[in-house]
C-alpha cells in the first residue's frame, strides 16, 4: 500500500497548480459573469501541453497516465470549473476514443492536432429523446458509396461551436439499440454541420453547451471510428475514463470551496458549528479524492475500473454539491452575491451530478457490477 503520489505526479501537480492559480483563476469570476469562453486559460493550457496529457509522445502528446489526467483536471477546476470541463471533455471523451479505437492512420491524422490544441475535441452522444438511455439514439449514418451520410440532432454538447472535431454516435442500421450504433469523426467544418441552440445554464458559464445539428453530413469511411456496430462500446469505454476526469473536476470545486470557507473562518472568527461543518466537508473531500485516484490508478494499469470510476464520479460529485452548499452556508449573505466564488461553485457543481452519466446512471452501473461480479 502506498498512497503517496509518484514524484512525477507531484511535480506535474505543482506545475499545473502554478498555471491554474496564476493564469486561470484570475479570469474565473469574469468568465462566469460574462458567460465568455476562457480564452486566456485555454491558450495557457495549450502552450503548456495540457491539451495532450493522455496522448503518447509519438503523436505529439505528453504521454501521461490517468492519474496525471485526474490531477490536471482537479487543479484546473480549483481555479475555474468551466476551464476544467473544456479541457476534460477535449482530453477524455473528445480525444481518448481515437487513441483507444482508432487505426494508425486516424491516430496520425488527428492526434497531433488534438494534442497541440490546434483542434478542440468534443463528444456527441446525447439526443433530445436519448439521455440516460443512450442506446435509443436516433441520429442516422447511411452508407453511401465510399462513405456515410449523417443526419440528426445532438444535444447538451460541451465545447459546442468551439470544437474542431466531434466524435459523433449514429445508427448505421442492422441491429436495434446498442448493436446498431457506430462512432464517427466529424470535423466541425464538414458541410452540413451546424450549431443549434446554445443553452443558458445555471453554471459553467464559460463552457459552451448546445445542440449539434447534422444535415446530410458526408464523411468517408476513414472517418468511422472502430467497426460498424461497435459505437456503443466506444461510447461506454470513453465515458468510463471520462468519469475519472469529472471526479477530478468535482474534487477541484470541492477543494476550492473548503479553502475559501477556511480562509473566511480564519478571517472573521468561528465557532464550533462552523468547525464541525468544515471537518465534515474536508473528510468528504478526502474520501472522494482517494476513490478518484484509485479509479485512475486502476485505469492507468490497464485493470478493470468501471465500478470504481462510477463510484468516484457518484461520490465526488455529490461531495462537490454538498461541500459547495455548506461553504456558502458558512459564508452567509456575503457568499450569495454574484462574484463571490462560493455562489459560483454551487452553480457549477450541480452540473457534475448530471453529466457524463447522471448519478442515477452511476448507481445503475455500480449495482449491476456488484450483482454480477460481487
Amino acid at each position, binding site marked *: 500500500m502506498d498512497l503517496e503520489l509518484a514524484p512525477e505526479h507531484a511535480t506535474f501537480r505543482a506545475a499545473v497548480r502554478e498555471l491554474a492559480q496564476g493564469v486561470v483563476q484570475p479570469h474565473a469570476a469574469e468568465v462566469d459573469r460574462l458567460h465568455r469562453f476562457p480564452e486566456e486559460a485555454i491558450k495557457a493550457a495549450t502552450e503548456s501541453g495540457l491539451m495532450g496529457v493522455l496522448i503518447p509522445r509519438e503523436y505529439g502528446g505528453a504521454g501521461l497516465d490517468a492519474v496525471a489526467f485526474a490531477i490536471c483536471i482537479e487543479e484546473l477546476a480549483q481555479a475555474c470549473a468551466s476551464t476544467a470541463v473544456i479541457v476534460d471533455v477535449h482530453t477524455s471523451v473528445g480525444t481518448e476514443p481515437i487513441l483507444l479505437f482508432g487505426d494508425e492512420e486516424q491516430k496520425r491524422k488527428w492526434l497531433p492536432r488534438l494534442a497541440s490544441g490546434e483542434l478542440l475535441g468534443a463528444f456527441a452522444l*446525447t439526443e433530445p*429523446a*436519448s*439521455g*440516460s*438511455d443512450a442506446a*435509443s439514439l436516433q441520429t442516422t449514418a447511411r452508407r453511401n458509396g465510399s462513405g456515410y451520410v449523417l443526419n440528426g440532432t445532438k*444535444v*447538451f454538447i460541451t465545447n459546442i461551436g468551439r470544437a474542431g472535431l466531434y466524435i459523433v454516435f449514429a445508427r448505421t442500421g442492422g441491429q436495434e439499440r446498442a448493436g446498431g450504433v457506430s462512432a464517427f469523426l466529424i470535423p466541425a467544418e464538414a458541410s452540413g454541420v451546424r450549431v443549434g441552440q446554445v*443553452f*443558458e*445554464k*445555471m*453554471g459553467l458559464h464559460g463552457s459552451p*453547451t448546445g445542440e449539434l445539428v447534422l444535415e446530410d453530413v458526408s464523411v468517408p469511411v476513414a472517418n468511422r471510428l472502430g467497426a460498424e456496430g461497435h459505437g456503443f462500446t466506444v461510447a461506454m469505454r470513453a465515458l468510463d475514463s471520462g468519469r475519472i476526469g469529472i471526479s477530478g473536476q468535482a474534487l477541484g470545486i470541492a477543494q476550492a470551496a473548503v479553502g475559501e470557507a477556511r480562509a473566511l473562518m480564519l478571517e472573521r472568527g468561528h465557532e464550533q*458549528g*462552523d468547525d464541525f461543518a468544515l471537518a465534515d466537508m474536508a473528510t468528504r473531500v478526502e474520501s472522494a479524492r482517494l476513490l478518484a485516484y484509485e479509479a485512475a490508478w486502476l485505469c492507468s494499469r490497464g485493470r478493470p475500473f468501471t465500478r470504481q470510476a462510477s463510484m468516484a464520479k457518484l461520490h465526488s460529485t455529490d461531495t462537490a*454539491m454538498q461541500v459547495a*452548499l455548506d461553504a*456558502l*452556508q458558512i459564508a*452567509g*449573505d456575503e*457568499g*450569495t*452575491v*454574484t*462574484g463571490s466564488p462560493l*455562489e459560483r461553485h*454551487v*452553480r457549477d457543481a*450541480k*452540473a457534475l*451530478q*448530471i*453529466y457524463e452519466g*447522471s*448519478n*442515477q446512471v452511476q*448507481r*445503475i452501473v455500480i449495482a449491476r457490477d456488484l450483482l454480477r461480479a460481487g
Partner: protein
Amino acid sequence: MDFEFTAEQVAIRDTIRELVQDRVAPRAAEIDRTGEYPKDIEKLFAENGILGIPFPEEYGGISGSSVTICMGVEEIAKACASSSLILAVQALGSYPILMAGSEEQKRRLCPPLATGEKVAAYALSEPGSGSDAAAMTTRAKKHGSEYVLSGTKQFITHGSIAGTLVVFAQTDPGADHRGISAFVLERETSPWKVEKLEHKLGIRGSPTAQIVLEDVKVPAANRLGDEGAGFKIALAVLDRSRPGIGAQALGIAEGAFAYALNYVKERRQFGQPIASFQGIQFMLADIATQIEAARHLVYRAATQVDSKAPDLTKVAAMAKVFASDMAMRVTTDCVQLLGGYGYISDYPVERMMRDAKITQIYEGTNQIQRVVIARALLR
C-alpha cells in the same frame, strides 16, 4: 388538533393561487433573467388586497394572521420566489410597527402599507453586523424633537423601493444591545441613499440594497417603543416572520416538485416513463415526505405566532431551519430529476434551486436558528 384552515383562509388562498397561476407564473422566468423588480406584480398584489394580509382590519388590512401570511407566501413562492418576497417583506417591515408601535403610530403608518400604496422594508444588518446584530454601528442622535441617523445597512431586501423603512440604530453606543432603538423612516421626509444593489445567486427580482444614512432626520414620533428597546423588538419581529420564510421555502420546494413530478411521468427512457423506475420513485417519495413534514412545522409555527404561544421562538426557528434545508435538498433533487434539462434556463427548476439557497441564510442563518433552538432547549 386541527389541521384545517378556516373557510376564510381557504378563500384567500384560492384567490391568490388563481392570480399567481394567471399573472405571476408566466412572468417568473423573465423576472429572474432580467433581475428587475416586478412593479406590475406589486401593483397586482396591492389591487387584490394581498398586501393587506399582514394587517388587522382596524389598520386597513384584511387579516393580520401569520397563518394567512404563510399561506399567501407559499402560494406565490410556488411560482416565483422573488414575487413572494413582496408579501413576506411587507409583513417583515410592518411587524415592528404592529408589535411595538403606539396606537397613533399604527393608525398613521399602517393603512398606506396595507393598501400597498407604500412598500415596507426592515433594516437590521450592517456590513460588520450580520448574525451578531448587537455589533451594529448605525447611530441615532437625539436633537430636540427629532433623531439624526447615520450609518450603513447591508443586504436590505426592498431597501431601494420601500417607502417605509424600519431602521435599528444605536441611541446609546456604550450600552451594547441595550442601546439599540427602532425607528420608522418615511422616504419623503427621511430619505436614505441606495448605495448599491447586489447581484445574487437567486431571488434576482427582489432588490437587495446597501443603503446609507447620511444624517437622516427622523421625528421622535417615529421611534418605536422606548429608547433601548430596539434589539428586543428586532428579535421578536424575526421570531414572528420566520414561519414566513419557512413558507417561502415550502412554496419553492412545492413548485419545483410539481414540475419535476410531471416531468418524470412524461419523460421516456428505456421505453418507459422514467417515473416507472424504482430509483426515481424513491426520490419522489422522499421529496414528498420532506415537503409534508416541513408544511406541518411551518403552519404549526405560524399558529404559535398567532396564539402568542410561549415557545414560539423555538418552534419558529425549527420551522425556518427545517423548511429551508428541505427546500435546498428538494430543489437540488428536482434539478437532478430533469437531468440536463434541469440545468438550463429554459426550464424553471434551476431557478428554484438558486432561489432556495437564500432561505437558509436570511432572517437569521440556519446556524443562528440552531443556536436559538439549542438555547431554548437548554434554558
